[in-house]
């Protein structure tokens, strides 16, 4: 049980309960509001091709990057109609999961 100085609490329906945490609870992922203007790698891989330039305006579904991952070429597409604001990758670059590859902004 938690010692006096290091007490742990859980709040359920406004009531504060003294208890102990589990390792899994301590390691839980804190939720962040997703930013849809950041095109992130959903899997680690290698950039095979960049099909767009900064400033370019593209329709929803237009291909922007070819990302090789899991021995497959993945076609990364525009999630909505928008402008390419910044490109943070180069051809041949190896990127980890969650890497911000391209920044975009919506265009009406």
């Amino acid at each position, binding site marked *: *049980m938690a010692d006096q100085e290091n007490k742990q609490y*859980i*709040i*359920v*329906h*406004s*009531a*504060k*309960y*003294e*208890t*102990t*945490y*589990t*390792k*899994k*609870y301590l390691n*839980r*992922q*804190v*939720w962040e509001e997703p930013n849809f203007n950041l095109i992130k790698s959903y*899997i*680690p891989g290698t950039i095979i091709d960049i099909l767009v330039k900064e400033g370019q305006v593209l329709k929803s579904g237009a291909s922007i990057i070819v990302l090789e*991952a*899991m*021995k497959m070429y993945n076609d990364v597409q525009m999630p909505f109609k928008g402008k390419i604001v910044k490109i943070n990758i180069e051809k041949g670059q*190896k990127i*980890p*999961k969650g890497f911000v590859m391209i920044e975009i902004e919506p265009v009406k």
Partner: protein
Amino acid sequence: MSLKRSILDLRKRKDEVRLGGGDKAIEKQVAQGKLTARQRILAIVDEGSFHEYDMFVEHVGTDFNMGNKVLAGDGVVIGTGTIYGSPICIYAQDFTVEGGSLGLMHARKITKIMDHALKMRVPLIGINDSGGARIQEGVNSLAGYGEIFFRNTLSSGVIPQISVILGPCAGGAVYSPALTDFVFVVENISKMFITGPAVIKSVLGEDISMEALGGARVHAEITGNAHFFALSEKECFEQIKTLITYIPWNNTVRAKAFPPKEPKTKLKIENIVPLDARMPYDIRDIIKSITDSSEFFEIMELFAANIVIGFGRMNGETVGFVANQPMVLAGVLDCDSSDKAARFIRYCNAFNIPIITLEDMPGYLPGVDQEHAGVIRHGAKILYSYSEATVPKITVIIRKAYGGGYIAMNSRHLRADFVFAWPTAEIAVMGPEGAANIVFRKEIAEAADPEAMRQQKIQEYKDKFANPYVAASKGYIDEVIEPQETRKILLHALQISMHKDVPAPAKKHGLPPF
């Protein structure tokens, strides 16, 4: 050949098979703190009770120069024996023979003993220690796994199935243990994963050791794939033998009864629980103050410790306990604890083991991670399992029984046979703090001193609802009992429920929210 000579010849042949992969391979095995396949079996079963079959089975691989190779027993030992006099079927993969890899005949030996166990209606114990599929045998090896998984499923709920992971168990091989009832792991020896560290590194660039990826502790604490964790093979074997004493041979009989014994704990049951519903205690102390000899055999001790499950005996008979643990995460229900409890409830129901539920929980764990992990469908598993169970179901509400959790923890509404409550029980939609904030929102906001008003309203709500009597007045609780009467009353309820028989509507099978 004279009879004597042919007997000597037989002995020689058996001795050769018993050497497995030979001295060098055995040396390697032992150096890792591991016993050999036969040593393991002999350490589990009663002395002199083991009989081995299919010793002279040979592998059938011909490709890649396999035709010239002799593999003793094709890398697996099968047989029958007894544990404390109870018959069991058992197999153990022999890592010293071609890495314990699974080829066609290896699998055929395993399925033979599985068929035997099902036919004889006795428990099956499988010891896994294998590098995986024997790649030289190609699709025959995959066929072998499939035949094993099918039998695991067919036997599920008919005979107890126990998996012991004493070495690597990787790729498709992991699914046989996953389909069985209880999985035993040993620190630094057990390794289970679908995709190993090398592939993960090459594909994803993530660098992780075998132990950190799929070691014993990971499966006992994080994934919930393992039910029993031990520090040595010896400790693991003791756990298996103890488990066998608590469970029946099959689904048509009851677990063996032992001579009844009084609890021996010096803990006074009424002194364990703090009066303040927000203060923790160890629910296992309550269980031990109720069970015979104060013995409690906990299952999945490290995983989702906010709920406690395991076996104890009441008047000599096995009982399954499901209990909220205020000491961990305030005893809330969440995805993992729901999965853990639901599977155990279904186990008890399948094998005629009465269930005693001890309730003290504030509700479900709040959080985006929980909601997004599917706490709705996971939580529903507890409702489903309790509702479906036809074994005797008895609940004791110790303190908090709030909201959806109250319903889920074997309430009257899910057809509990007996619901008892201590006078400290609080049965309500939520705790007084939360309820006062909602019910008296306006009064609190408009008060000159909102905090004082809030405290006053909390007290008002507490006085009215933080007790067992409102629920008792509706008949949702059968009896409000004194804590020290708990064991006596539970024994009585179990005695009355002994021949419980409730018909269920005919169906092929239900659709539990997996």
